[in-house]
Every structure is written in structure tokens, then in C-alpha cells.
């Protein structure tokens, strides 16, 4: 049985502008000791998804199930959820400075958390345990450092303190929400290394939320790609990077600068993510998708099995065999798209291809085709083809 099994989770927030549909029917599961990477851009719903598990999305309308170790967390009263927060499921946030209380010593804050969950623990024992934890996450001179305030720590050291707190109650699952985004590259490497080492020691399951594909390539076993509140592709790490199926995943990988293409033009994704209040009809990615077909405008694709007996799923109408970035897969995509594109979809495709970033357009032609009319208002330029 999975440690955590989320099925058909929906979260929306009523706002003055309308209903914000932050998470729309996401399902995933995670096993003990496993690392799941959740990738997506800002506003894709990746943070809301995990915060909902802990009842941290106040004011949200939530439906669906999230069974953790036999208990459905969704709709659980707050008093009962408290037994899970921190103790069974710990969270590491992006910005450790705002997650730590500035006026209390770091060691005290860890000890306080220990005592909040175990009333029988004496102050002295809790303080000792805090020092042990700081030592375990690699903070030098832990006993002295426990008496320092958060502002006396560097960013990387503060993130270590957060990890120490997350570990303190031996949780079964740690959710790390952009744990290294605020850190420098060399410190990021230290923190990712530490997370992996501690995970191997304790067998904790780990969910890493990030926008950085590099972090995912480093640390994840399985990957969930989110777009506009949907899980658009779920697969093992190697499948995501080497045999992507969903055009968004593929475009995301291709838009990154990499050393083999140094000096050449990048291939950005046209336009920008949709508003979660007014989602486009059909597939939410269709206004930016170079493989747009008639069907994509009308029907939103469910997560369909692509390969590996369901382990690789993709929410796209392209045939399941069209995975990867090779010529054969590209041919298959091309044939499907030619057959499935008439009228309106052809106009959307033309608008994407006409944007100034289209590969044929000479870079020195200034201001060609300022805006794609009709299809996608506010279109930013750029196309991948």
C-alpha cells in the first residue's frame, strides 16, 4: 500500500474575480522512501496541491481524497490534522527566514516543537535533542549555534535548521516546497546532498516541489508535471527527461539553454500560462501548443496511459507511442496533427507559428507580427517547432 494516495483532488478559491481553480482533479501516490518531484511554473497549483494535504489552504473549496497511512486527510477536523502536521508529514518551505521566528533562539524553536508534540519531554532533554538535530544536518559547533538567532545564520544554514526541524519528529513524509530556490548553486548542492543522505538514513518519503528541472534531475525518482492545476504528465524521471510525451513537458525541456546549443537561439514556449479564473476550453495548453488539433479545443484530455503499464501517463490527445524527441516520434506527431487539424485549430496553430519568435522569422526583422490576433490575447512571442 502506498504511503500517500491522492485521488481526484480539486481545490478552488472563490475570489472577487471569480472562482480560481487552483487544482483540478490531480491523482498521485508515493511509496515509503521514494522521492516524487512536482514541477510546474508559478500558478500551476503545485504548492496548493501539497498544502491542501495539511489543511493549510484556508478558504479553499476542497474535494477528493488523500489517504495517508490509512487515514483520509481531506475534511479531517483540525484537531486531528494536528497529529499529522509535523509529526507524520513535515514541510520545508522556500524561505527559511520567514519560517523561523526572528525573536527566539534557533535551538529553543526546535525544542519547543518537540515539546509541543511530546508533553512528557523535559526542557533540558528537548534542548539536547535540538543540538543533536542541528549536528545531524551539518551545522558546525551545534551547541553554541543553538543559542543564536535566525538572523545570525546564512541562507544555507537556515535551510539546514528548517530541515532539522522537519526531521525532529521522524516524519514518514517530508514535503519540501522549493527548498533550494533562494540559495546559491554551491549551497544548493550541499542541501540537496543533505536531503538525499538523510532520506537514505531514515527511509522517509520526500515530495520536492520545484520549478527547476535541474533539481528534479538530481533528486527525484518519479516526476509529476503540473500545468494550470492539472497533472499533465506523470512518469519515472528518465521517461520525463528522455521520453517526454506531453508537448508542455517537451517544450519545457527544450526551452532551457544547454551547453550543446550554446550561442544558438533558444526555443521558448509561445505565450504565457492561462488565468486560472478563465481557463481556455479543451486542453489548457492548446493556445501555446505547436501540436494543437481540433479535438484539443473541444475536449480536455484525461491522464492517459502512454507506456509502462500506466506508470507513464500524459494528458494529451497525441497517440501514446509519440514519446521522446527523436525523428520517428516527431513524424508520428506531425502525421496526427495534419490529420486532426482543420478550421479553428489550424488558425490557432498559424497564430503560434506567426509569432515573431517563429524559427523562420529572421531575428533582425523588427516588430514583425506584433500580436497574434484572436487566438491568444496578450500573446508573448515565441514558438517551438
Amino acid at each position: 500500500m502506498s504511503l500517500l494516495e491522492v485521488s481526484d483532488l480539486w481545490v478552488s478559491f472563490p475570489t472577487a474575480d471569480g472562482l480560481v481553480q487552483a487544482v483540478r482533479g490531480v491523482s498521485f501516490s508515493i511509496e515509503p522512501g521514494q522521492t516524487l518531484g512536482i514541477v510546474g511554473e508559478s500558478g500551476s497549483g503545485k504548492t496548493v496541491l501539497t498544502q491542501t494535504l495539511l489543511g493549510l489552504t484556508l478558504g479553499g473549496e476542497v474535494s477528493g481524497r488523500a489517504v495517508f497511512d490509512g487515514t483520509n486527510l481531506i475534511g479531517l477536523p483540525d484537531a486531528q490534522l494536528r497529529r499529522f502536521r509535523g509529526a507524520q508529514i513535515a514541510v520545508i518551505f522556500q524561505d527559511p527566514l520567514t519560517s523561523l521566528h526572528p525573536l527566539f533562539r534557533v535551538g529553543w524553536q526546535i525544542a519547543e516543537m518537540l515539546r509541543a508534540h511530546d508533553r512528557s519531554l523535559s526542557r533540558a532533554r528537548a534542548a539536547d535533542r535540538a543540538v543533536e538535530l542541528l549536528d545531524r544536518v551539518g551545522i558546525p559547533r551545534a551547541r553554541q549555534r543553538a543559542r543564536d538567532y535566525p538572523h545570525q545564520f546564512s541562507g544555507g544554514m537556515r535551510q539546514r535548521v528548517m530541515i532539522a526541524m522537519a526531521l525532529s519528529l521522524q516524519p514518514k513524509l517530508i514535503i519540501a516546497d522549493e527548498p533550494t530556490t533562494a540559495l546559491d548553486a554551491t549551497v544548493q548542492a550541499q542541501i540537496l546532498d543533505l536531503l538525499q543522505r538523510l532520506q537514505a538514513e531514515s527511509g522517509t518519503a520526500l515530495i520536492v516541489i520545484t520549478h527547476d528541472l535541474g533539481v528534479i534531475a538530481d533528486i527525484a525518482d518519479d516526476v509529476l508535471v503540473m500545468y494550470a492545476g492539472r497533472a499533465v504528465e506523470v512518469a519515472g524521471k528518465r521517461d520525463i527527461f528522455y521520453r517526454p510525451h506531453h508537448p508542455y513537458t517537451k517544450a519545457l525541456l527544450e526551452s532551457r539553454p544547454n551547453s550543446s546549443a550554446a550561442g544558438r537561439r533558444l526555443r521558448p514556449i509561445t505565450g504565457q500560462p492561462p488565468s486560472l479564473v478563465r481557463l481556455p476550453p479543451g486542453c489548457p495548453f492548446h493556445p501555446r501548443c505547436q501540436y494543437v488539433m481540433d479535438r484539443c479545443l473541444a475536449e480536455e484530455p484525461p491522464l492517459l496511459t502512454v507506456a509502462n503499464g500506466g506508470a507513464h501517463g500524459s494528458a494529451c490527445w497525441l497517440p501514446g507511442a509519440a514519446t521522446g524527441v527523436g525523428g520517428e516520434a516527431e513524424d508520428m506527431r506531425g502525421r496526427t496533427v495534419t490529420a486532426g487539424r482543420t478550421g479553428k485549430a489550424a488558425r490557432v496553430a498559424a497564430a503560434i507559428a506567426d509569432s515573431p519568435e517563429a524559427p523562420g522569422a529572421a531575428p533582425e526583422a523588427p516588430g514583425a507580427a506584433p500580436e497574434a490576433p484572436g487566438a491568444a490575447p496578450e500573446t508573448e512571442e515565441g514558438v517551438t517547432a
Partner: protein
Amino acid sequence: MTGVRPTAMPAPDDVPEAPGGELVRVENLVKYFPVRGAGLFAHTVAEVRAVDGVTLTLRPGQTLGLVGETGCGKSTLARCIAGLIPVTAGRVIFDGRDIANLPRRAMRPFRREIQMIFQDPYGSLNPRRRVGAIIGEPFTVHKTATGAQRKRAVQDLMDRVGLNPEHYNRFPSEFSGGQRQRIGVARALALRPRLIICDEPVSALDVSIQAQILNLLADLQQEFGMSYLFIAHDLEVVRHVSDQVLVMYLGRVAETGAAGQVFDSPRHPYTAALLSAAPAADPDAAAARQRIILTGDVPSPIDPPSGCRFHPRCPIAAERCSQEEPALEAKPGDPALEAKPGNPAHPADPAAAEPRGPEGPAHLTACHFPLRAGALPGQAEVREPR
């Protein structure tokens, strides 16, 4: 010094040529910030050595990538070059004139030649002003265009950076992050500067939008021929945009050279560690490489370590490193000292085949024990794999 230059979109062939093939030369630039003690009339008790003797050159139409961790002084260096803060010592030669610490009035003509694009597209645009006014502000400040002429120039700029010129009257809040960064680019471009300092221009943007802005910057450089001083912490981005790279550590230059040389055959252990720590979006490469995990944090620039500033964190530091500061110099065995084109040290790097001016930037390293040339970071003779 060119005199009055057109402010509307001029013909693309109007590319400024600087004498001597250099647009900017920075010599031994030093910037210390005073640390004051407590009390009203407190005197200086210490100094933050943000930039401590940096020398660099930037050619017209080229991009210099500035790399380093938080607190290494890269943003301070950029602000000194732009004349936004006074320098403590050293020279900033722009187009043949020393502009370091020029009086306000004398600096004014140079202000329009040097523009900046900031990291945060939210914080760097006034939320209460309309986009047309924000982009048109440089014309007003420098009194180069007014009224209908100004509006037309602004709309030309908006069109050029991929914004709809009809959105002239909108507020910044009505635009997405990527579009706001385009507004910032248009504002920087308004006076046709010869140098644009880009301080982390894409760091705050989503991955799919980053590529749009990077392509736009590349197109504008090709069209108008300005130079970029490009600061970013994402090494893949720096590698992509840069002709030359300067790696900084604690206010000093650790290594500099052509982008291909520095990235493909780093000689300084710090550069190698930075490269090995940079996340690559490729699981096999991530698994195969040996990450050099540096211990500890960057030391305080108030009291930098003796000798080589990197020695407390350097995996190959020796006795000499803590006593003697290494000079920034070319190291023997460097491919840069031998024939360059077709050199197997840079295979399949189209950037390496590009013309780089007569002699190309030299590959300089400040280290007593430089790494073997051509050794990739993962294979470098550096201990401490994971």
C-alpha cells in the same frame, strides 16, 4: 564620445564603434562600504570589501557574463560601472574617458550610454505610472523627445520588444512578469545606450518565459550592437549569452576568459566547483558527474581570509594558499595559449568558432595550483566526491 544621437528607432547599421576595440575598461576597481559603530557620531569600525581590485574589459557588441555567489560583489561592481555609487579607488574607462566619480553634470551624457535592466520586474516599475510614461521617462529626463514624437518613439519601442503598442496607457499591474520585463527592456533601450547592464534579468521569470526574454536580448544586441554586462547565477544562462565570462569570489576575480574556455576547461577550483554544483536538466549527466561539494559558506567580506580568499573552502588548498595571494594570470598548458580554432578542447561549441576580435580574450586564473586544462569539473583532480 558621439554627440547627440537619434532617439527614435534608427537604421540598424548605426552601430557605434569604439576606438581601440574597447567599450569599457575597468582597472583595479575597489569599492569598500564603511561599517559604522553604534551612536550618533560613530566612526567607521570596519569595511565591507565588496569589490577589491577588479580589472575587466568589454568590447562593443559583446556580452560579458558575471558569475558568482551571493555577496561576491558582482552587483556592486555593476553599480560602480553604471556610476550609481561612487567608487573607492580604480578607474572605469568608458569609451576612452575615466567616468569613475565624475561630478553629476559631467556624468550626465554618460548616463544615457549606460542603462540597466533589473531582476525584479515588479519592484523596478512604478505601479502608479502608466507604461507609456515609464518607457518615455528617459526621453523626458534627457530632453530628447516630447509630445507626439515621444509617444511615437515609445510605441516603436513597445513594438520592438514584443508588447502591443496599444497598451500604452496600461499600468504595470496589468502585465504578466515576462511582459513587465519587456517594459524594463524597452526603458533601457529608449536612449539607444551602448552598454546595458542586465542584473539577473531572467531570474524572477518562469522557465518558459526566460527563453523569450533571452532571445529578445540577443536580437536587440544583433540589431543595435550594444554591449551587455550580464549578471546571473544560472550558469547555463550565462554560458548561453556570454562571449566572455568573469568569475568572482569575495570581491576578486577568480577566473576570466572566453565563455567556452572557462566553462569547458575551468582552471580555478572554485569555477570547477560552481560548474559541478550547477543543476543540469539531464538525469544521466547528474548521476554521472562527481559533484564537488564545497564545505561551509562564503566568508565575510569584512574580514576576508588571508592569501587566496578561496583557500578555507578549497578542496586542494595547500600551505602557500593561505599566505600568498595568487595573481590573475594566464596559466601554462592553457588551450588559449595555443591555436584556438579546431582545438579539440572545445568540440561542438559553435560559439568557439565565432570571431572574437583580433586576439580574443585571454584565459586568466588566480590560483597557485590551477586544474589541468581540459579536465572537466567531474574529472578534475579534486578530492571529495560524494
